[in-house]
């Protein structure tokens, strides 16, 4: 595995792009493209949790799927343990998938209602030809225990479980093949508040016990701060800021990050009364027709002429060891 600043890089994403074509007319001519992910570059270190935040439509889920090759990227490279996933053959990719799994947002939609919990969790084992029938069953029971469910539930169906329990089943399925990397796409946003903490604690424990690496995609900024080691903020298909959790939350350099953070509700009436909100004007522009230059300039209170002309470089304003990347022409203003 390649090294960077003394840390092992497990996943390295380089200028990843995913454009969905817009087709029109009888002959389905391509008239444009929705640039869902438009050139993102970052590394995920072994054993860390990288939080990916942004508003709906910013491309964060698409980025997660493109990294796992569940959607074919339009351009760019994704290195997983130093192999470029975008260049692998179908068979090689399938073998590589053992080591990288996904947890989905809606456990109701991602579990087959006609299969028992046992079949759902053992399916990845069958696909990858792991063990025989008997050992698979043992493994499923073990996994159920690991995620805090009774192994006796093995022959039940998804509808017999609550939302939080179903998410645990989804987690067990993701763990079945002993992956080293997991993309968790909004794993808690469909759950009740009191259940969210249970699932987050479980993910945390599993990471410590099994040495997992997470890409945690979410829009809940407080939860992302809690679970992540580093945080990337996405806006309209690009990463605008990336740094350690405390750097991004305590010293945000990008005006968009600042606005996002100021909008988080705080469960404390006294603090709420004192704080000032940055209310962004307007809404996120369409990714089919993003603004020129800096994509945020149409809503940014600091925007100047250069912002509408030049796409800002994604540059490091932190140290070599602890980088704090930001894509803003005026970032120095906030240092």
């Amino acid at each position: 595995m390649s090294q960077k600043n003394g840390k092992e890089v497990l996943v390295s994403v380089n200028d990843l792009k995913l454009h969905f074509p817009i087709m029109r007319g009888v002959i389905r001519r391509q008239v444009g493209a929705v640039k869902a992910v438009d050139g993102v570059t970052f590394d995920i270190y072994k054993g860390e949790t990288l939080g990916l935040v942004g508003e709906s439509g910013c491309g964060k889920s698409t980025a997660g799927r493109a990294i796992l090759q569940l959607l074919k990227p339009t351009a760019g490279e994704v290195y997983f343990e130093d192999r470029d996933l975008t260049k692998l053959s179908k068979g090689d990719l399938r073998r590589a998938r053992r080591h990288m799994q996904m947890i989905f947002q809606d456990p109701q939609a991602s579990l087959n209602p006609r299969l028992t919990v046992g079949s759902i969790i053992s399916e990845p084992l069958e696909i990858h030809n792991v063990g025989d029938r008997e050992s698979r069953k043992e493994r499923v029971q073990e996994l159920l225990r690991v995620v805090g469910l009774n192994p006796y539930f093995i022959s039940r169906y998804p509808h017999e479980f609550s939302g939080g329990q179903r998410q645990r089943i989804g987690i067990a399925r993701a763990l079945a093949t002993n992956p080293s990397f997991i993309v968790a796409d909004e794993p808690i946003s469909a759950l009740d508040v009191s259940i969210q903490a249970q699932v987050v604690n479980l993910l945390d424990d599993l990471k410590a016990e099994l040495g997992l690496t997470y890409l945690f995609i979410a829009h809940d900024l407080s939860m992302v701060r809690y679970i992540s080691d580093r945080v990337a903020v996405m806006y309209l298909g690009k990463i605008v800021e990336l740094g350690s959790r405390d750097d991004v939350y305590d010293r945000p350099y990008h005006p968009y990050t600042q606005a996002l953070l100021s909008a988080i509700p705080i469960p404390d009436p006294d603090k709420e009364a004192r704080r000032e909100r940055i209310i962004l004007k307007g809404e996120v522009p369409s990714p089919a027709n993003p603004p020129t230059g800096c994509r945020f300039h149409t809503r940014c209170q600091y925007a100047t002429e250069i912002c509408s002309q030049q796409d800002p470089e994604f540059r490091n304003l932190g140290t070599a060891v602890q980088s704090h990347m930001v894509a803003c022409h005026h970032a120095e203003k906030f240092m």
Partner: protein
Amino acid sequence: MTTILDVRNLVTRFYTEDGVVHAVNGISYTLDEGESMAIVGESGSGKSVGVMSIMGLIPSPPGKVEAGEVLYNGRDLLKLSPEELRQLRGSEIAMIFQDPMTSLNPVLTVGLQMTEALELHLNMSSAQAKERAVEMLQLVGIPNAADRLDDYPHQFSGGQRQRLMIAMALSCNPSILIADEPTTALDVTIQAQIIELVQKLQQELGMAIIWITHDLGVVAGMVQKLAVMYAGFIVEYGSVHDLYNLTSHPYTLGLLNSIPKVDARERTRLSSIEGLPPDLLMEPKRCPFAPRCTFAVERCWEENPPLISIAPAHSSACWQWEVVRSQSKVGVAA
């Protein structure tokens, strides 16, 4: 302050094939003119059913409002005929819902939907109604309002649709606005816009608001009063300051502790509420929170604690409220 809404001992049940669902089990609260309060609870806590009962929106069968009084300016809403209630809804008590698409008609233009209510409730002529509709759209910040009356709901973005709902709800100058999770489907920056808008309009128009939400964080800064619901009961009720600082019910405390603090310096493990929400098919005889409660004592398994006043403007339904309060934010600091 005059009380505008006085809900007393409201009971709503659903008679289903599987048995009787005890959705709302005798809740009482009051709302003053121009006041904003929040009803907080998780899915299945009865927070939405509680206000739907007030508005006469419970489908019957299977639902039935079985007991209680809902006094609005002295009139009991539960005794009104469907026709009388219909006149009240939308004009004096208005509601906005979580998902604007379920309450906007996709095949009618926005202008038609907005003017319909105005012509019905306020007897406006179509020209007057149109003028008022444009005025409302401008008020909620929709650009080119006059041109957009002929557009259909799908031509608006999610945040704009929520603004449309607000414009429709406020067009008849209601004295009470009930907002059922109006921002959960929205992103934080849009959520901040909508909350700011509603608060600004509240000040301008002087209406009372009931926010229904599952998120204790969202309402902290914007209401005066809070009712926390669990399993169809109000388990804690009082001023926002008391509920956040002198929390006296283990469920409220659990909810507050399970939200990570975005401004927290060090990382402590999240405390979660173990177990699952209760089965509402069971008749509540003991404290419904007891199976998940870390403060529970024997009495909790035998008797359901009533909501009792523990301080001026603060009530709790917990036998152990004093112990819980010592663990609250101020209690721990003391």
